[in-house]
């Protein structure tokens, strides 16, 4: 019947998604080796540090615009919203090419270079890429939060004597704490997951995903499995917190 067909198709989908993961976790290869492999540890540290840095920056520049977008209507608002979605629309490898072309091809980019801000094969290049791909997640999470905060709360706060800024920090921001946390986790997760754009901008210092590809290309599947399992565990931990 109708129901049976639906349940069978659903089971198929679930198996397709979960079996590769289960197989990986049950046959992780030699994890011990990986844990004592300084290249693995370094790549993980670089991934975490870069993603963390990008997340903090995203917080500071992403929350203000999400507040403005949730509270005000202005001419060109949909253009602004479209700009924020750019990193989600464009293939990752292309994003790398775009950022590199901007850095090398424009006076602004060369200006950054001349003051010593390097991105090619540099930690800050990784941060730049992670920030670029992660910002939409931060902005969208925070905006969804602000949209759920009843504007009357802010109105009442002002009639009770709080200025606009005080109202933002005492009422609006505390109320979207959960959205800020989940926006940060998504931005962070998006960052450590990125590989396409990083391959273009900064093959070195190697992030964990780059190292996985590197090991796979040089030594094959078995060599890349243990690092992959570590990444899986890390990602699943992050997502459990998110939920």
């Amino acid at each position, binding site marked *: 019947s109708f129901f049976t067909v639906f349940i069978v198709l659903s089971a198929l989908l679930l198996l397709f998604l979960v079996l590769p993961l289960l197989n990986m976790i049950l046959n992780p290869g030699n994890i011990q080796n990986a844990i004592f492999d300084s290249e693995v540890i370094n790549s993980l540290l670089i991934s975490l540090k870069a993603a963390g840095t990008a997340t903090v920056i995203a917080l500071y520049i992403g929350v203000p615009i999400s507040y403005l977008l949730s509270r005000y209507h202005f001419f060109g608002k949909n253009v602004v919203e479209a700009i924020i979605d750019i990193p989600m629309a464009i293939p990752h490898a292309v994003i790398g090419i775009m950022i590199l072309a901007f850095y090398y091809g424009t006076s602004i980019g060369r200006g950054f270079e001349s003051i010593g801000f390097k991105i090619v094969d540099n930690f800050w290049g990784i941060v730049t890429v992670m920030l670029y791909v992660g910002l939409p997640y931060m902005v969208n999470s925070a905006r969804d939060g602000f949209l759920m905060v*009843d504007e*009357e*709360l802010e*109105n*009442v*706060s*002002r*009639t*009770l*004597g*709080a*200025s606009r800024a*005080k109202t933002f920090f*005492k*009422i609006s921001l*505390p*109320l979207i704490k959960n959205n800020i946390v989940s926006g940060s986790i998504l931005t962070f997760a998006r960052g450590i997951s990125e590989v396409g754009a990083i391959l273009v901008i900064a093959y070195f210092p190697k992030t964990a995903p780059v190292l996985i590809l590197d090991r796979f290309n040089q030594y094959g599947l078995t060599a890349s499995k243990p690092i992959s399992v570590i990444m899986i565990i890390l990602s699943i931990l992050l997502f459990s917190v998110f939920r």
Partner: protein
Amino acid sequence: MLKLENVSKSWKEFKLSNISLEMDKNYCILLGPSGAGKSVIIQCITGIIKPDSGKIYFNGEDITNLPPERRNFGYVPQNYALFPNMSVYKNIAYGMKIRGRSKLEIDKKVLDISEFLGITRILNRKPLTLSGGEQQRTAIARALVLDPKILLLDEPTAALDTSIKENVISELKKIGEIVPVVHITHDFVEARTLGNQIAILINGELNDFGDSEIFKTPKNEKIAKFLGYNLVKIENKNYAVAPEETVVKRPNEVQNPIEQHYFGKVESIVDFGYYRKLNVKIDEYSVKCITKGTNNLKIGEDVKVFYKRKISLN
């Protein structure tokens, strides 16, 4: 005390046109159907939105451009807008904390106002766990604790169960004795029971302003219609007749045949218990009549209708 001078404002789908109004230090009701722009007026008074043109004065001072945080007007929105992450106590204390009052002073005032409003035992609860009535008291306490110059209430009973509505109206009467109130509503019962001054607002325009006499003598057709009067034409003149100022009788029950009466047929009956509402078809008009609940007329019966009072609407 509070004076609006030619205030106009377009805001979302609402539009206020040229409202002038002077409220004294007592209980003022702004009465109007939903969508009349009542909330826009109250938001203009709080300072949250600025009028497009016109002035607002308080005790003679022009406050049109004063930001809300410097007016000290208490505001209780329709949904109460309690801060959901703070306890009742913290909600009430919020304004005093912002003002940097001492812990001791805050504690004393919050307890005083909570006692007055009977919410002492819920001070530690979070707003989401409160009943509608408790939420409303908390919102009122949060405003009153700052000794506001005026208390602004936006449809205070709209979000409440009908069962507690009547109690709330009595409570508001008490509050009106300690602070001047501007209360907007679409509910005639609230307006009749509470209003010392009543302004009628229809389609963003001020239609009448006065005491509760305005229910008795509608000034024009628009108001009469809004207040539920029958509009009848007698000898080519227009009159308003209140449904409760009609008498409906079976033709054979009529005692005094000299009185002016109209033949009609009962179209529909709605039974409210204490009274019944009849629609009586007279010529091609349908006239609403209120009769006692004990009346036993049936749909389709022929009746005679008398008007105890007619208000002439030039």
